[in-house]
């Protein structure tokens, strides 16, 4: 390793060059259509890494530009690229103003993710999605990943619950690519790999967590997000790129007068729909009863207040962006709240004319008060398990026990405590050095560290029995730290019609997680800390994970229209077995801007097909074992105690000395098209991914003394189409109407499974089976007559589960009148959608009013409605449907006694179509620019009224077809990333109304 490293280091020791004189370029960027200033336009000096962004007033400044004749390029999403040539001198700043014309195509946009150096989109053979700050700030989302919902082709972004603080978001790029690691993409902020785990120290139910750590990022700090979706684009990220990469760029200040901006938002969230309840006035014996809807006692209208105060500005040498944020969000479930306090300081300092330092420091404190939901001792769980005759309200201060499941939900809300405190610091330092015009060397050091402290408290007597009956106090601390070092060198070389870009880089990541947890039961009354318990226990663990890699890339461009790129990444991880330590991930891509060739122009006029680019790419990427499996290559011995003596025995999981990453091969082919003078743009991509060496637990012969081994068990494919269409429907001086449509279709298939099919969520009716999509629902079904489709009932008029039929096939066929009930279990549904899509409409009315509306939908996915199922429990029967069992005999709607209790065991009866369309975002923004306003607030006052998740169109009978019991799927033995679409006692996603004001001074 070291020998190879030193060879590479040659790249970072280039010849030092003499000082050069530099000058400054500045100007304003405006919309040619209406003359309004354009913010967030990228302005760069062509052929160099120098550049900046325009501010809200359209102003930009680029310092340190080498003197001489330079080409200045302005680019912005939604506009055509603009170029101007200018003489730069050291004497005075050169002024270049741009008036940009609207365009729906994006070929000129510069992206950096998945490429060794900033590269124009036209040169890249893969499709890369980008989202700008405007789309994020208008979404009213609390977290960055929520804000991305409905904005990226090829992505299925699901908010798993409606708890405050983000609710836990799962991002699947081009389908599920892994059973482990949650299958979520790699997140990079300003070049620093950040932790997006969903660690929880005390179970909050659901085997998952209600917050993923991306929730610590403040969406207001985000300038731009780039998303690459598969191996073809992500090969440069090597063994961590299987699930795609999301790179987030935070705001950098703009040179010029300092600007102070205050943004305040107040929002109200509410439960969109209540579940209807059984309010039948008699019990099963016909005695009158009073029924209570506990939802009225559990849910509330909740207020969110968000404030951001930022200052940015700077001069030729120094630019800065400082932001302080303060957000308090109450949950719609009483007792839940989340708050975030944070600050970010970003400084860009030109140290020498050719040496720039970017510093970023972000501190955040996130505090959550959560309640258990889903499985276990949940609040909504208790509502669904208990009959509506149960009134949970306290009587003389005593909270009555539920007849079926405890705790009393109101006791849980009032007295239980599950606080989480996260203190996190993300810091980055990047040095960029241009020793030559054509050579850029950069080095990034990143740090992402946080401590997560979580406690739990159940007062004495909260449960009628069990270990927590005597009270429980628990406290755990999780310290996570990622150190990241990244060095890249990039050299440009022109030769006749060819432009060659040679890049090389090296990356080292060191992740360490330490946690300690102490729990005690048998609590002294009043005391809520662990030391108040008589029966303590404790645990500790330390995990270290190191990844080291380097890469080289060569890009050959021909006449700026034909580009061929080849790259190779070598990666080593401490999680791999010693003989599998180094893994190689190559990629190649081709891009051809057909529309700039003369022959094409001879065929089609610019008015019809204004631009056309064809692209294709092939790449490999991997997926490392996660933190949970970081030591799976070792044969671990576990401690046991016998006769009060300490002992050890082998863990039943056999170590795998040949452990290596999951490996993905992906190819994609696509086209980017512009029609009618770029008024319409269309990006189409077809991809084909094959993940082999999928990691999971392979059963081993138990006669060896082991039960399983973490190893390669099979292969899985994802194939699909992505369409992104942008149109400028109208572009008048006083009215502009833009539309964006996104369509993503993915087909997942478990191609090969070397182990028997398995229930991926232990205890739940789902499977991973060869020849089926991952995580299909599988289990017992209600037997029907094969000809008529009518239910086959037993002598009491109840449904017959497929498992109750005799094992003999002939007898089964005779009973069902055909072969439709031959097996005891079968596939019941598929939680993977056929397609997901969104439609965004944006309007600019006059100079001051902007309107937007985003519809977001998922189609063809099934949901296992376990919330409805548990209401069928014989002792619960709390849904309106269940009233049929209470009706007097003789009533034609009467269901026989035990009908629903019998149905409870038949999972097929709870599979529902989970297709939905949501009115995800609606907003209206008015900017006051009257002189009386601009006298005090130079950029005006912006008033926004908006809504999020306002309405859901769906046939689903539960609260919400979006969401998942297993949260972000904490990977392990009992759930995998494939387990989706389970609705069970999760807090529904609220409907939110907001009003916000932004003052800029």
């Amino acid at each position: 390793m070291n020998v190879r490293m030193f060879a590479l280091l040659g790249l970072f020791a280039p010849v030092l060059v003499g000082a050069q004189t530099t000058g400054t370029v500045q100007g304003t960027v405006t919309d040619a259509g209406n003359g309004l200033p354009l913010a967030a336009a990228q302005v760069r000096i062509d052929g160099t890494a120098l550049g900046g962004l325009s501010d809200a007033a359209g102003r930009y400044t680029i310092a340190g530009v080498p003197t001489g004749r330079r080409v200045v390029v302005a680019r912005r999403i939604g506009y055509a690229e603009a170029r101007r040539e200018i003489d730069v001198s050291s004497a005075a700043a050169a002024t270049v103003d741009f008036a940009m014309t609207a365009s729906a195509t994006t070929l000129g946009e510069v992206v950096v993710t998945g490429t060794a150096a900033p590269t124009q989109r036209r040169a890249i053979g893969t499709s890369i999605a980008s989202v700008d700050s405007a789309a994020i700030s208008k979404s009213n989302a609390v977290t960055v990943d929520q804000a991305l919902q409905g904005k990226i082709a090829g992505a299925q972004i699901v908010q798993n619950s409606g708890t405050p603080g983000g609710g836990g978001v799962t991002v699947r790029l081009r389908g599920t690519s892994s059973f482990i690691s949650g299958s979520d993409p790699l997140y990079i902020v300003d070049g620093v790999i950040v932790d997006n785990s969903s660690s929880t120290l005390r179970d909050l139910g659901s085997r998952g967590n209600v917050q993923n750590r991306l929730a610590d990022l403040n969406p207001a700090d985000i300038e731009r997000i780039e998303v690459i979706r598969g191996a073809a684009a992500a090969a440069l990220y090597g063994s961590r790129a299987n699930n795609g990469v999301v790179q987030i760029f935070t705001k950098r200040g703009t040179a010029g007068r300092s600007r102070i901006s205050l943004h305040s938002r107040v929002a109200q969230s509410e439960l969109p729909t209540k579940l209807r309840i059984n309010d039948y006035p008699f019990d099963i014996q016909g005695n009158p009863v009073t029924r209570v809807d506990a939802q009225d006692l559990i849910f509330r209208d909740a207020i969110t207040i968000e404030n951001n105060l930022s200052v940015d500005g700077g001069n030729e040498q120094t630019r800065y962006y400082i932001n302080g944020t303060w957000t308090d969000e109450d949950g719609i479930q009483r007792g839940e709240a989340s708050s975030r306090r944070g600050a970010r300081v970003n400084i860009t300092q030109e140290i020498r004319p050719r040496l720039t330092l970017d510093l970023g420091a972000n501190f955040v404190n996130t505090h959550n008060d959560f309640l258990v939901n889903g499985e276990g001792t949940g609040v909504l769980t208790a509502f669904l398990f208990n009959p509506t005759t149960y009134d949970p309200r306290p009587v003389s201060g005593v909270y009555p026990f539920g007849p079926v499941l405890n705790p009393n939900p109101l006791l849980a809300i009032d007295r239980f405590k599950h606080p989480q405190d996260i203190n996190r610091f993300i810091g980055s330092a990047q040095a960029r050095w241009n020793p030559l015009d054509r050579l850029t060397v950069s080095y990034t050091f990143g740090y992402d560290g946080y401590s997560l402290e979580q406690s739990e408290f159940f007062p004495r007597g909260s449960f009628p029995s069990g270990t927590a009956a005597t009270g429980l106090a628990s406290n755990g601390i999780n310290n996570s730290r990622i150190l990241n070092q990244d060095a890249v060198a990039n050299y440009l070389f022109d030769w006749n019609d060819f432009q060659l870009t040679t890049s090389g880089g090296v990356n080292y990541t060191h992740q360490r997680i330490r946690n300690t947890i102490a729990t005690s039961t048998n609590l002294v009354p009043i005391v809520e800390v662990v030391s108040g318990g008589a029966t303590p226990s404790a645990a500790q663990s330390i995990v270290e994970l190191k990844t080291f890699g380097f890469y080289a890339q060569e890009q050959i461009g021909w006449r700026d229209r034909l580009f061929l790129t080849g790259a190779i990444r070598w990666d080593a991880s401490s999680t791999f077995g010693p003989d599998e330590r180094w893994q190689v991930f190559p990629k190649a891509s081709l891009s051809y801007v057909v529309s700039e060739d003369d022959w094409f122009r001879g065929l089609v006029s610019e008015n019809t097909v204004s631009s056309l680019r064809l692209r294709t790419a092939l790449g490999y990427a991997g997926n490392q074992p996660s933190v949970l499996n970081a030591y799976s290559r070792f044969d671990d011995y576990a401690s046991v105690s016998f006769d009060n003596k300490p002992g050890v025995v082998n863990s039943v999981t056999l170590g795998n000395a040949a452990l290596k990453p999951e490996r993905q091969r992906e190819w994609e082919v696509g086209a980017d098209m512009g029609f009618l003078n770029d008024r319409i743009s269309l990006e189409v991509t077809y991809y084909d991914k094959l993940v082999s060496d999928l990691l999971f637990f392979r059963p081993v012969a138990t006669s060896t003394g082991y039960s399983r081994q973490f190893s390669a068990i099979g292969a899985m494919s994802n194939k699909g189409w992505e369409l992104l269409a942008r149109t400028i429907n109208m572009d008048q001086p006083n009215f502009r109407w833009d539309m964006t449509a996104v369509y993503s279709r993915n087909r997942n298939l478990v191609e090969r499974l070397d182990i028997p099919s398995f229930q991926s969520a232990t205890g739940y009716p789902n499977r991973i089976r060869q020849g089926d999509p991952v995580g299909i629902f599988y289990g017992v079904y209600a037997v029907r007559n094969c000809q008529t489709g009518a239910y086959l009932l037993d002598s009491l008029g109840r449904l017959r589960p497929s498992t109750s039929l005799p094992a003999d096939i002939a007898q089964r066929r005779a009973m069902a009148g055909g072969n439709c009930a031959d097996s005891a279990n079968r596939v019941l549904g598929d939680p993977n959608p056929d397609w997901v899509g969104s439609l965004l409409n944006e309007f600019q009315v006059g100079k001051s009013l902007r309107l937007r509306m985003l519809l977001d939908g998922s189609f063809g996915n099934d949901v296992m409605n376990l919330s409805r199922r548990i209401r069928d429990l014989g002792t619960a029967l709390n849904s309106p449907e269940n009233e049929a069992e209470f009706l007097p005999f003789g009533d034609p709607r009467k269901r026989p006694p035990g009908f629903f209790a019998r149905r409870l065991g038949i999972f097929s009866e709870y599979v529902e179509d989970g297709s939905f369309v949501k009115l995800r975002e609606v907003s209206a923004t008015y900017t006051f620019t009257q002189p009386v306003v601009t006298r005090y607030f130079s950029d005006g006052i912006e008033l926004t009224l908006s809504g999020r998740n306002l309405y859901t169109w769906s046939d689903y009978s539960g609260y919400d077809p979006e969401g998942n019991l297993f949260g972000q799927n904490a990977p392990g033995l009992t759930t995998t990333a494939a387990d989706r679409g389970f609705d069970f006692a999760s807090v529904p996603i609220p409907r939110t109304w907001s009003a916000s004001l932004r003052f800029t001074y």
Partner: protein
Amino acid sequence: MRQYFAKALLASSLGLVACDLDTTNPNSPTQETVVSNVEGLMALGVGLQARFGTSTGAFIYASGLLTEELGAIGTAFSTISDAEGGTVAPNAGLVADFWNSSYRTIKTANDIIVGAGSVTMPRGTRSGLLGMAYLFKAGAIGELAQGFDSLPIDTYDNPTPEFVDRTTALTYVLALLDSAQRAYADTVPSAQFTSQVLATGVDVPNTILAYKARYRRLMGNWAGALAAADSVSRTVFSRLPFSAQAPNPLFNVSTGSSGVLPRDAYRADALEVQRTSFFVKDTAIAGRIGTPLDAWVVFAANTSPIPTYYPDEVLLIKAEALVNLGRLPEAQAVVDSVRTDCPGAGRVTTDPGPCLAPLAAVLTAPQLIAEIYRNRRYELFATGLRWEDLRRLGLVGATSIAKRCWLPYPVGERNANPGNVPADPEGTEPPANNNECASLELP
């Protein structure tokens, strides 16, 4: 100045190189570290006893449930009550629990046997560790051979072990017991072993001898069984101790979804009240399928010990050997010595004692054998040994006492060791009555 930047950059890059990707797991030791030093091997010795406690418990559970000794409690899963009637599928938990836990005992014993051969340690520590490892390995294989008609014995570092028949397995068990005896006799076990490894109450040398008697009896080696039985101390009662941290496995499964308790049929003979009250007490609990159940006396707490053998098992083996060797009067005297053992008296005061009168008349050989088996039933309750006795008595079948001849092989083993696992000797459903169990005949 610029040179400094260049140097800083270079130094940072060098920092990248200073990484060692060979991490170790700080949370738990690995096999290499455990088997390569004395502390690790001694800890394995403790772990071995814990594992044998678990596996012998699983043997008692499976055997007891299939021989009308134990019954499923009301909260038990239907698979448990099905087993009570003899229906056992290859994926049943009780099959996997018995198989897996026994092979885990064997794995830990093998770890010690392999490690103790190469690690420098006091001679008395090695003799203790090796004696114990061979003993419990033999014990686990011997118990497996009473539930499965063939089984792998060569399982160390062998991902796909081959199956051998019971005779081969039991021959191997006797060879292991010889090794245990030799290793233990090498030198007096050190204080290091007896104080830091050996659990209080466990007697290794006498258990080795008792097991030799037990398995020689199974193999029909009557002279050998007699010799071994005679060499067992009459005053030792060797028991595995349990605690809250390592609870008695049978106490542990007296509640919950796998729960079993003794069936009250054991108490039917009023004359045997002295012995039955050692094990159970009448509490009139209804089982899942209506079987009346009793509460444990012998396993009434999570700290209740499980004997590695009952002292009178040795005497009953001796008596049976004498009958088979034609020495009937001696045999009857031994049977009488068991019959007249009274609670709180005798050679061992804490074992079951029937406190019956001596046999009134001189018995014939078949009569003596019948009396020996009758005594074995009462004396050796909840030891798992009754299953083999019933097989020998031909009392096997759906409506007989033992519901099955053999257990099916666990599905986990079949899936991961394809090609080596033989066809199940019986289906999921119990066999017909008085089934002559195949592979019962031992040389």
